[in-house]
């Protein structure tokens, strides 16, 4: 049978972001996959070099709408690493609360989307309805449902008022029974087993080879979690379990995320109940020349920020690496050899976030850079001219 090329993207109902997968099919079996990204490149790293450290915190918050706390968290840690500086304990707790709230809503969002991709729209709507409760809780805490703007280098911008805590705890508690039911509905459903078990297996070795991160690697039996390996925030203050499963298939990735949500609920509750008194800001006045890194466990895996300071109030170099950058290449290992109907859920199973991942680098096969910034600009101008000429615009 002749091989068919099946495009998924750049605009496709599968995922809401522009991404382009070229699936080569033999019948309904995928024999090759090619990923093309870059439709969404915004030049955040370059922009960041023109803004002060305080402004950049808001900028990196807008790298991604869903991990809107992971990026500022990692960025602030990178800036604090330049000094180096220890953040007040209360600020650490507040940061942890916000980060875990984000993990809960991100995992619920994924669970809903995964249900949608499988045509299970009831799970989709239920998970998203549940997510509303967490978004409400986050609104009580920060004033925003998303993009919380809570972080600043040296601490947090807003304190948590003691009178808000009972309401937040109630909201967080209220999701547990429904989450329990959703967990049972997903973990015990025989049809879901038939669809997800043994599908898109990422073996432990492959996971290590591709440097997969976050739930994607933990589902393959790689016990790797920044919160445990290199504790930051308040994660070393309480007991919690790192969820690791062994099979590496889509089902295990779902299980890891669902069980992690319960852990996140517990961490968030612990932090709210044991919020220590004290300062919330270390009041950084100046930054010495030097470099710093910050890495945190975002819902999708390790988010990494690097900051080079030259002693001014702006980063001389700022480098971001989002977890999806490492997770997306695992498609090569998981999708090839699978059925087309499974390909979509496998592509979704790493919870890819393309806007986090966008970057520009044009290389030839030997790995040498073909274009520098000036040449790219020239290309862009040339294209504008060409389009103008075609349209007859002066």
């Amino acid at each position: 049978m002749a091989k068919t090329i099946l495009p998924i993207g750049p605009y496709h109902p599968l995922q809401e972001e522009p991404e382009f997968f070229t699936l080569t099919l033999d019948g309904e079996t995928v024999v090759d996959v090619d990923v093309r990204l870059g439709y969404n490149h915004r030049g955040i790293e370059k922009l960041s070099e023109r803004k002060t450290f305080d402004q950049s915190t808001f900028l990196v918050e807008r790298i991604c709408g869903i991990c809107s706390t992971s990026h500022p968290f990692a960025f602030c840690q990178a800036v604090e690493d330049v000094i180096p500086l220890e953040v007040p304990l209360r600020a650490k707790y507040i940061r942890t609360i916000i980060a875990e709230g984000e993990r809960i809503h991100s995992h619920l969002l994924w669970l809903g989307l995964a249900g949608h991709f499988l045509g299970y729209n009831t799970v989709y709507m239920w998970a998203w309805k549940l997510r509303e409760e967490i978004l409400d809780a986050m609104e009580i805490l920060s004033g925003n449902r998303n993009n919380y703007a809570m972080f600043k280098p040296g601490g947090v911008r807003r304190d948590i008022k003691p009178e808000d805590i009972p309401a937040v705890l109630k909201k967080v508690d209220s999701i547990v029974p429904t989450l329990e039911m959703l967990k049972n509905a997903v973990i015990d459903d025989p049809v879901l087993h038939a669809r997800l078990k043994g599908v898109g297996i990422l073996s432990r070795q492959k996971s290590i080879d591709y440097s997969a991160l976050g739930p994607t690697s933990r589902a393959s039996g790689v016990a790797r979690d920044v919160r445990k390996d290199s504790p930051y925030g308040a994660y070393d203050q309480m007991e919690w379990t790192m969820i690791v499963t062994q099979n590496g298939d889509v089902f295990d990735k779902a299980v890891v995320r669902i069980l992690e949500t319960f852990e996140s609920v517990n961490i968030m509750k612990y932090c709210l109940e044991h919020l220590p008194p004290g300062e919330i800001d270390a009041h950084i006045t100046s930054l010495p020349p030097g470099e710093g890194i910050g890495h945190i466990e975002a819902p999708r895996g390790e988010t990494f920020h690097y900051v080079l300071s030259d002693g001014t109030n702006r980063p001389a170099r700022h480098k971001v690496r989002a977890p999806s950058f490492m997770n997306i290449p695992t498609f090569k290992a998981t999708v090839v050899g699978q059925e087309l109907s499974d390909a979509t859920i496998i592509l979704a199973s790493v919870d890819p976030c393309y806007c986090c991942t966008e970057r520009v680098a044009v290389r030839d096969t030997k790995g040498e850079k073909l274009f520098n910034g000036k040449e790219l600009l020239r290309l862009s101008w040339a294209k504008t001219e060409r389009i103008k000429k075609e349209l007859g615009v002066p």
Partner: protein
Amino acid sequence: MTYLMYIGYLVVFGVAVTAVIGLLASWIDRKVTARVQYRVGPPLLQPVIDLVKLLGKETLIPSGASRTMFLAAPLIGFASVIAVSTILWTNSLSGGRSFLGDLVVVVYLLAVPSMSIILGGFASGNPLASVGASREMKLVMAYELPFVLACLVPVILSGYTLKLGDIVGYQTQHGAIALSGGGALALIVCILCMQAKLALVPFDAPEAETEICGGVLIEYSGPVLALYRLMKTMLLFVLPFFIIIVFMGGLRLDGIHLVLFVLKYVGLVALITVIRNTNPRLRIDQAMRFFWGPMTVVAVIAVGLALMGW
């Protein structure tokens, strides 16, 4: 005169009444689905509004498509649904107007909508539509065998008649076929085949939006798409109607029986809605295995039971 009467049946019941009930049923389906999912759901007239809106849109024919086939396919499917519903209505409303072998005709005609979808999918020359069409083809091959086997059960139980009128007559005297052992099993098989014929979750692989963007229907737009939609909506009435006629006592207009008919119909629609809201989509090979394996076995057992008179 009889010709005029048949044309009347065709226009009034075959098209108009069927479409109205189908649209109402599709509204119930959407509303219940929405309530299950914490949504508000559409207003009563939404299915009609959707159709009217589609009728006002442009029909785009892709340049790579086979034009005649692309436009004819929905007409073929639509015509067959009208034919089936006219036969069923004529049978139910004027008893004795059944002709020999009309059960066979109906079973055949019920396969035509799927064929028209396959035709349209392949004619549109889109790779995603081709994938969808080939899935639909696999699905048809999978469910037709248990469906036909299950339809044999009422034939056997009512004394080897192929006339719908006689099957209903038998049930009027001896009680619904679904109340016998073989009949009950065959009814279950038929309901699941109906789900597949309607291409609803878990058997919606041919149209899977998130996998192949609507599959067979991807290139259709405007009035032609409206025709497909209307065809599906009418099937939402015709298929349960057929099942009620052959398994559950048929349509009788006197008093309590009419109420019972409405209850049976609403029950079947509710069952369809529940099934489609509590299941994820099956892969096409899993769906085939399901129909050729357990469903065929159950259908064969049902036929066996029917032969023994149970």
